[in-house]
């Protein structure tokens, strides 16, 4: 029996008052067990997105927590079935909007496996994919830390986190033309080579981030309030993590060194030298430390990839799959290169037909299913792609780690206080765009 219940009992012993219109004696009787049901969200600044939690409370103590989701459901998986394979990239990139490049990578890896061209993707494209996704991991973790700080009342952490993230989004805009929802990684490679000055600019940002991360570290790691709010909260054991399908930083914070980049490597990422950051406590504070460590490791990978960025094409040589034109930056934005336009419009009828067929109809993918998983900032992000041998996907399913982690919230929240729910949910770092799809 909690303390609050004891106090309520004492109140019940107070002489009774009769109030016109209602017999107030009934109230303490009715709430004898002190249970109430409270809706938290969906429009709540601290639920990490459009997430609604139905809490059953005994005073401040949470007895049960049922997440209600679907507020951002946009039917992306259904939409994909009526678009050519390449256009699917523009849909999946909008699922987990903090890690768009990972969505694209998982989808493209699955399509490439169905096409049987996994080993034909050029090395330069692989290296660019690694650089871009690892930068994306840094930006996603920065937002995760920033929003956690905001939800726990540390507004300066939010300001710093979002400010640092903006440097990475500037690089993304420099390379892909967009800060988010890039549609940059395509089946067969990437859509356009990195522009001149990319390497130098990225190195500058890495150097800057190293110092700024130190500031974030100074601000939070030894901060008594931060430790008080996070330490010992929302503990998950490795067995619980496995049972609920939890992967990523949350699993690693419980002491399991499971990282798909090491165990099931993609894009040659196992050739880079990096460590899998783990912790043993399994609480919110351990997850914070794991994320900070992963940012540092990702910066290491990016530096190595920049050091040995190979030359060559960024798209498969197969002209039946590769986008016909290299894109180039013109006065009105990114578009087909001028040389390509003058060739198809002035010199080669066949090239024009080929361009037209490939752009309007796309390519055909052999029948079958493929499941390709990548290690996203939140865990195992995978695309399960089924083709019936046409130019459109028959069925695409994305296994989003945020969605699976939402299913573990009832186990995580039981026995916590209401204020700790905020820390626990934030430490799982779910992105509702990925949860609802």
């Amino acid at each position: 029996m909690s303390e609050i219940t004891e106090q309520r009992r004492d109140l019940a012993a107070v002489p009774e008052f009769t109030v016109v219109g209602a017999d107030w004696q009934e109230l303490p009787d009715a709430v004898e067990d002190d249970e109430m049901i409270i809706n938290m969200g969906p429009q709540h600044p601290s639920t990490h997105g459009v997430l609604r939690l139905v809490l059953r409370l005994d005073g401040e103590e949470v007895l049960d927590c049922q997440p209600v989701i679907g507020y951002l459901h946009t039917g992306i998986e259904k939409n994909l079935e009526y678009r050519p394979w390449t256009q699917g990239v523009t849909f999946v990139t909008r699922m987990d909007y903090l890690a768009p490049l990972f969505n694209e990578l998982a989808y493209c890896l699955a399509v490439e496996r169905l096409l049987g061209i996994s080993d034909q993707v050029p090395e330069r494209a692989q290296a660019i994919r690694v650089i871009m996704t690892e930068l994306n991991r840094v930006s996603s973790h920065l937002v995760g830390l920033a929003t956690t700080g905001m939800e726990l009342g540390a507004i300066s952490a939010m300001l710093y986190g979002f400010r640092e993230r903006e440097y990475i989004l500037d690089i993304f805009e420099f390379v892909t033309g967009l800060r988010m929802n890039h549609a940059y990684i395509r089946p067969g490679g990437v859509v356009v080579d990195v522009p001149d000055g990319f390497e130098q600019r990225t190195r500058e940002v890495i150097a800057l981030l190293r110092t700024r991360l130190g500031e974030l570290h100074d601000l939070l790691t030894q901060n008594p309030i931060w430790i008080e709010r996070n330490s010992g909260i929302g503990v998950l054991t490795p067995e619980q993590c496995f049972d609920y399908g939890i992967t990523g930083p949350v699993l690693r914070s419980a002491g399991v060194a499971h990282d798909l980049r090491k165990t099931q490597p993609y894009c040659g990422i196992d050739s880079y030298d990096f460590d899998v950051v783990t912790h043993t406590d399994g609480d919110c504070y351990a997850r914070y430390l794991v994320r900070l460590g992963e940012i540092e490791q990702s910066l290491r990978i990016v530096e190595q990839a920049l050091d040995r960025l190979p030359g060559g094409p960024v798209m498969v040589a197969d002209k039946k799959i590769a986008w016909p034109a290299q894109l180039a930056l013109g006065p009105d934005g990114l578009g087909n290169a001028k040389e390509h336009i003058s060739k198809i419009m002035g010199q080669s009828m066949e090239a024009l037909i080929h361009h037209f067929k490939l752009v309007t109809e796309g390519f055909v993918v052999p029948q079958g299913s493929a499941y390709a998983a990548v290690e996203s900032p939140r865990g195992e992000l995978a695309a399960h792609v089924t083709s019936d041998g046409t130019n459109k996907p028959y069925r695409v399913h994305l296994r989003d780690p945020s969605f699976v982690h939402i299913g573990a919230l009832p186990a995580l929240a039981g026995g916590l206080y209401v204020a700790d729910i905020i820390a626990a949910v934030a430490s799982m770092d779910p992105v509702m765009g990925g949860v609802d799809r």
Partner: protein
Amino acid sequence: MTDNPRMQVPDVTAQERINQIEASVAIQLDGKLAAVRDRIAGAFPSCEFSGFRGELTVTAPPDVLVDLLTFCKTDPDLSCELLSDVTGVHWPGGVHEHQGQETTGWPTYTIEQAGRIDVLYILRSVSRNHWFRVKVSLPDEHAAVPSAVPVYRSANVLEREVFDLMGVRFEGHPRLERLFMPEDWEGHPLRKDYPLGGVEVQYKGATVPPPSERQY
């Protein structure tokens, strides 16, 4: 008939041609997955196995599913700690014509099939570092399969999603309710027979046709 060998149609039936193509693109399973296949085949003789692009698919009858999942989780050689994903693919019944394309070598063929829903379970072992797929084929009318929640609790939300969007009933699931769609929604949107609406536009009664009928 031309002399060009690429234009000559081989003298085989459509299904044989498909089998040939599939055999030519299928990659042999690596030793690890072959061992997994042999291990499951020894314990569950009613399962069928297929490998495509290096991925192992175990096709199980619905009545052995829970036993199979329990075996995969507890067997020390398999030790699949994670049920990563549950998803479904709907193959509606009827006569389907597949348009062949010369450039890809795929023939035009017609198949008649009974409607079915494939429910797919992705099992991953962290300690043994392998993953494979368990497939259960169900008739698409009143599709029902035993729930995997007693074995893996991650199946809770994953199965609810498949129920909500594909209409598969998971018998014994603790809370089989809609997850993404509103509670009073009719139908299951990811089924292929789910009617798609067009969009009315304010121009002389014109409409934008539903995506399944658009010509682009």
